[in-house]
């Protein structure tokens, strides 16, 4: 079954049409990149899909069900998780506690005033597992706010991963990072996709990352879909080169 199906979604802010008639389908196991010049509406599109605001028109279906009117936390409970361009973590909690909160919520414990020893051990094991997957195990007890930018981003991805999402949305995961950090994050994303079979939709500016990772690419420009297809096709498209890659190179 198609995992995510967006049909003719538009978003208007007053007179500004931020997203105009965008359609997209994502199949399970896919890694989809969304690229486009600044102000193309990529993050707005993410916000529509994740529920930060509702589309002005069009529909969003997740696993066949219309979710256009659902609150963000309800969409999360149906299997969507996302990260943000500006990392959103719990700065005053330790890295381990950041992930623990996510693990407990994912396990359905968020209203529990008490956890039995067995459940507590299961949570601790899952936290340890995610910490080692992220490479943050040696920083487990560091305040998350004191981590480097790249480590904060890795922690945020791990929190989203703790939810065992069926769709993981990453908004510019390598933004503002050096080469080494970019490489580490790209490797993490590749591992999540290839090894864990996770379906991922990501917005990215770093073309090396995009063309290395993506199965398919959607190009947005001025709120509209400019092109859509496998990386090879996008790289060769004159339309894309003219509107985007050319501009970026200039």
């Amino acid at each position, binding site marked *: 079954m198609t995992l995510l199906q967006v049909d003719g979604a538009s978003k208007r802010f007053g007179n500004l049409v931020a997203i105009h008639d965008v359609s997209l389908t994502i199949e399970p196991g896919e890694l989809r990149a969304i690229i486009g010049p600044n102000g193309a509406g990529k993050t707005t599109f993410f916000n529509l899909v994740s529920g930060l605001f509702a589309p002005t028109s069009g529909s969003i279906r997740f696993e066949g069900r219309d979710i256009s009117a659902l609150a963000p936390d309800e969409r999360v409970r149906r299997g969507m998780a996302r990260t943000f361009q500006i990392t959103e973590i719990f700065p005053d*909690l330790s890295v381990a506690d950041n992930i623990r909160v996510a693990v407990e919520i*994912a396990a359905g414990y968020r209203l529990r005033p008490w956890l039995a020893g067995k459940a507590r051990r299961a949570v601790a094991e899952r936290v340890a597992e995610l910490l080692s997957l992220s490479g943050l195990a040696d920083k487990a007890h560091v305040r998350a706010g004191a981590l480097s930018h790249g480590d904060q981003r890795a922690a945020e991805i791990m929190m989203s991963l703790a939810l065992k999402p069926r769709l993981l949305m990453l908004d510019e995961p390598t933004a503002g990072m050096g080469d080494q950090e970019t490489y580490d994050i790209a490797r993490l994303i590749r591992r999540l996709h290839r090894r864990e079979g996770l379906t991922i939709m990501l917005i990215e500016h770093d073309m090396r990352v995009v063309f290395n990772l993506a199965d398919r690419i959607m190009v947005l420009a001025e709120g509209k879909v400019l092109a859509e297809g496998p990386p090879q096709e996008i790289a060769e498209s004159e339309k894309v080169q003219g509107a985007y890659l050319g501009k970026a190179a200039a």
Partner: protein
Amino acid sequence: MRRGRAFDAAVCVILLFMPFWMGAIGGYTELATRIVVMGLAAMSLNFLLGFTGVLSFGHAAYFGLGAYGAAMAIKYLDAGTIPAIGLGVVVATIAAMVIGALIVRLRGVYFAMVTIAFGQVFYFIAFRWNAVTGGDDGLTGWHRLPIDFGFARLDIFQNDKAFYYFALAIFAICVGAMAVLLNSPFGRSLIAIRENERRARFLGVPIEWHVWLSFVISCLFVSVAGALYALLNNFTDPRALRFDLSGNFVIMAVLGGMRSFWGPLIGAAIFVALQDYVSSHTENWMSVIGLVFVLVVRFFPRGVLGMLRSGAKA
């Protein structure tokens, strides 16, 4: 962690013997009881303020409802001490459930403003409804009653030390319950909301529902403090509901340190002791507390306990 446990134990010992050492430093048992009761109120407020990140300036409303509920149960219904406290708490908690549902979508200063507004509604009811509440003069003509356990009798009316330990026992139950809650997955979801509401929402936490629960729990415990306060004074008046008392709770929490569990208790102790000492010299005791407050916030933004902690580390 180990130092945290040692600190918990120290607080317990200090509280357990407070009526005995209070006299040595110029205090008296009733002052000790007031510290415990106000400490409970400030810690209850801090459940919402310090551990959920939501500021209420209307907690006196639920403190006062607890006070009036308990006082009226004794005066009009001849209720025993425990049922009277129970009635005050039930009335206040129901009010908190209804008002909480109305305001839980608001944030920041809007939330604080509306909590004041709702609080003042209760104040004016108590102020105006002379026949039932005693109006401005307060509710008199009743006093707390000895508790009969069947096998034993605790005379909390005549014996002020007995009442201190009665209040301390209830304080311990409430504070213990809050500590368990804050160390649970539910408590961590509240701290998550304080730390980053957007991240909490995008982990799947229905924020409004959790903030509502935190508000109601916080109001429930503050109403216990209110009921104890009425019993302590054998009296209650509309000032127990007024927004300046809500402000005092906030001052106690911030003064002691709202990020720490015990901070508000220490803030309450400083506040109550200063109030007691300074008000015997001048009517303008609030200006002294205000000065202390400004100095603490200016130099130790994490409160007195935050200052002690960082001092211990250095």
